[in-house]
């Protein structure tokens, strides 16, 4: 029996562990068990990915009920890649967690980490399952856990942010459920592969069209695609830093994956892009998100909000890749999905380090901090290079593919737009650097020591990954291409 056969345990380990962690006393033990669980998931996901790339989809029938009757876990390159990202980022952010959580959350941590594991298990479940209704179930598991996690924030505004997210997230999930219900109504099946086989006969069915629209809007909400992004800035800004770091790298990515899975696998692109003006709609929304997100980020004085708006812009890049509906475009989307997780995690970690020492994420309180916390702010600057897309960083690789995809599609103006928004990123990153190094510390500000190693080491680890994946692109580009192929059905023709 190899590790490969433990594939379902990627989801089951965090799910089961959450029950155990909830009962554990104290503060360190729950963290340790959580870390072990997330690491175990990540290790299995790392073993599964190469297999999923080289072989056709791996399938696991739950309770030995053969699909399409039972629930099936179905893993190909696309979701194996996302699963590795989610579980890997969970493990890395957990390394960063203890100090940061200690400064923000008091009392025993069993519940907190149990919720975290639930959120993680939910995200991984959404990723791996081959059953449409199961997607909804896991989506609710992860969402409910996430709302609670956000509400843990020290700032009282975290409650409002969590409530807002709850409302909008529930609307999104309901849309998804309605969409799935329509599909079930006309086909009588919930298995995605089975749906994909049956839907072509129902091309002209209005319920199917409505289902597609509902699912895309529902996932657009979870993805924070403009104009459905309103929940995101406050949720990210006021959640505990550790939660923000984790969500920024994973939650929206999984939502994008679900959207892609439905558009490409369940409905197939020659349906999705034909019955709805999906290409145009997604492209317009993506570009609007890129600009609006970057524009607002340029004027934020709260740095976590700034990064949150930047995330909205980055979601725009990913969706832009999707909207081109080509293999290169999808590759770019998957690349940026992965790379942006690394970039944004590093940036939020650096800001988390600053908050750990100064208790503030305001731009003004960062003035002159470059000399007092050089390692933290250098990490921020380097991760900033990656979000701008400077060569030798991961961000460059994803932008390169995005631009290449635009050129291949003959959309020159998209190249221009991507570059303009990159320049906007230069501006909002530069503001921070200028404040940190070229401004004087405000009079009366207490001297601040450098962040503790427990925070710095994981932060720099993610920064190093940003450069590693900017230089060694075999894993990311290879997996992204395989993921795009898997979604397109091994390079099938596109409209």
């Amino acid at each position: 029996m190899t590790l490969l056969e433990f594939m379902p345990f990627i989801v089951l380990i965090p799910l089961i562990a959450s029950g155990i962690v909830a009962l554990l006393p104290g503060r360190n033990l729950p963290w340790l068990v959580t870390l072990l669980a997330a690491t175990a998931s990540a290790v299995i996901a790392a073993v599964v990915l190469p297999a999923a790339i080289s072989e056709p989809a791996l399938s696991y029938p739950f309770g030995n009920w053969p699909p399409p009757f039972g629930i099936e876990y179905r893993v190909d390159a696309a979701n194996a890649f996302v699963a590795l990202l989610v579980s890997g980022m969970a493990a890395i952010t957990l390394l960063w967690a203890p100090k940061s959580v200690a400064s923000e959350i008091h009392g025993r941590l069993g519940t907190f980490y149990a919720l975290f594991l639930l959120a993680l298990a939910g995200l991984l479940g959404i990723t791996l399952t081959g059953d449409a209704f199961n997607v909804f179930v896991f989506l609710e598991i992860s969402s409910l856990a996430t709302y609670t996690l956000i509400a843990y924030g020290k700032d009282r505004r975290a409650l409002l942010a969590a409530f807002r997210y709850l409302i909008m997230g529930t609307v999104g999930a309901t849309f998804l459920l309605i969409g799935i219900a329509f599909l079930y109504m006309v086909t009588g099946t919930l298995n995605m592969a089975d749906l994909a086989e049956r839907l072509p006969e129902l091309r002209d069915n209005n319920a199917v069209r409505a289902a597609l629209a509902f699912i895309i809007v529902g996932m657009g909400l979870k993805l924070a695609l403009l104009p459905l992004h309103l929940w995101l800035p406050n949720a990210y800004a006021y959640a505990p830093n550790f939660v923000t770091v984790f969500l920024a790298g994973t939650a929206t990515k999984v939502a994008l994956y679900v959207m892609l899975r439905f558009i490409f696998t369940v409905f197939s692109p020659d349906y999705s892009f034909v019955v709805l003006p999906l290409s145009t709609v997604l492209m317009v929304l993506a570009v609007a998100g890129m600009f609006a997100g970057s524009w607002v980020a340029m004027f934020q004085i709260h740095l976590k909000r700034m990064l949150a708006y930047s995330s909205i812009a980055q979601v725009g890049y990913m969706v832009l890749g999707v909207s081109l509906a080509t293999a290169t475009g999808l590759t770019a989307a998957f690349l940026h999905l992965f790379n942006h997780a690394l970039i944004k995690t590093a940036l939020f970690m650096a800001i988390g380090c600053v908050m750990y020492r100064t208790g503030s994420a305001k731009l003004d309180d960062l003035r002159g901090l470059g000399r007092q916390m050089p390692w933290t702010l250098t990490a921020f600057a380097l991760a900033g290079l990656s979000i701008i897309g400077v060569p030798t960083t991961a961000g460059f690789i994803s932008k390169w593919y995005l631009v290449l995809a635009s050129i291949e599609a003959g959309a020159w103006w998209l190249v221009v737009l991507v570059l303009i928004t990159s320049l906007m990123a230069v501006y909002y990153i530069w503001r921070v650097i200028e404040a940190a190094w070229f401004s004087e510390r405000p009079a009366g500000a207490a001297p601040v020591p450098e962040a503790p190693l427990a925070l710095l080491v994981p932060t720099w680890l993610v920064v190093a990954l940003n450069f590693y994946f900017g230089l060694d692109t075999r894993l990311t580009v290879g997996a992204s291409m395989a993921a795009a192929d898997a979604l397109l059905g091994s390079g099938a023709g596109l409209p």
Partner: protein
Amino acid sequence: MTWLPQLSPFTIVLIPMVGALAIALTAGSTRAGFAISWLTSAAFLVSVWGLAGPVVSGEVVEQAVWELLPGMAIAFSIEPLGMLFALLAATLWILATPYAIGYMTHGGYSSLARFFACYAIALGAAAGIAFADNLLTMFVFYEILSVSTYPLVAHDGTGKAKRGARTYLALLLLTSIGFWLPAMIWTWAATGSMTFTSGGIMAGQVDPAVGAILLILFMFGTGKAALMPFHRWLPAAMVAPTPVSALLHAVAVVKAGVFVVLKLAIYIFGLDYLKTLWSTDFVLYVATFTMLVASLIAMHQDNLKARLAYSTVSQLSYIVIGAMLATQLAAIGGGMHMLMHGFGKITLFFCAGAIYLASKKTRVSELDGLGRRMPITMAAFFIGAMCVIGLPPTGGLWSKWHLVSGAYDSGYALVLAAYLLSTLLNIAYLLPPVLRAFLKPLPAGESAGIKEAPWLCVIPLSLTALGTLVLFFLAQSGFELMAGIFSGVNG
């Protein structure tokens, strides 16, 4: 020079980078920082000259460092033009090191570790540009050069310095990311190559209509070449301490700009293909316009450094014109002017800084009679000015000679006339400071005793002035080195 060590290009690029790291770590000890600066610039000089031998003899020095994506790599290869640029930067760096040490200590500046570390990084980046084998590598180092010089421009930390530095960085990044980067990607998409190749990579691959647009994107994207209207960063950078203006904004940064222009013209577009593009003439006339207008502006600058800055803008356009004339002679002339103007202009800036240190004077109108108090400095200024104007017995004569002959050969009468007119303008704005210093009496109340700047500053400026004279006799070997570009021996 076979007795010198021959290091790989990437190692040479890393020498200043490692030196910068070491300097940054000595933040507490100024003396140790100076020692490492000396050591780094000396090691850099030796290693760059060590490569000169093989390159002159026609050997191909290549090194692939890392492949990012298939066909897209960080790689180096050295051809004569890049060798010349690297030699220029390395030679002037070792002269600028004592000057910078003298200037910064006597001027009472702080944060010296940051200053010298960034100084070294900038030189490493210049070497990276010089040795780059493809557009991507060049772009990476081009951006490192922009960013690493920002702290140097903003060094004073005053509001004015920060505003200047912001203009500086904003314009350089805007042009490079806004124009250069898309042009690079477009080139890659159209030709499937980014490697500098003899004769260019575009001929037969890219439609001239597209090539013309690419040329415009590339030329204006090379903000460091200071074509109008993207020249404002150079005067803005003059808020920097003078050693920065001298080595970086008269040599490393701006020469990197025109080097990129020459390199693009020769190795990406190819001179023959360049002739077929309509936009070549357009860029040519923009450069001509820049050359004349910048000269006219320079005449009206009373601030000495601002005058020199606009003079640089004007002289850079000489070289851009040389590239756009698309003849071998003019391109070689452009390459030589890179060298000659480098020596001449660094001398002038060294002098401006020395004058400021010794007498706190920054304006041309304050220079009356200064030749009596600072005879060495003002004599060096005179020689530097002659070199920039292109008068014998300085090396400037030869580079302008080839540029003008190139214009004559290619039949651009208007450009020929502009060259001659601009030379007259050069005389009109560079000689008045000299004439004031030597012919006018000192203002009342100033003693006539000799008061030169510290010797750490005077010796370098004397040496660079001497260098312009030596180049008058050595110009032929520079010409032969670059003639190798077209004879097929190299590259």
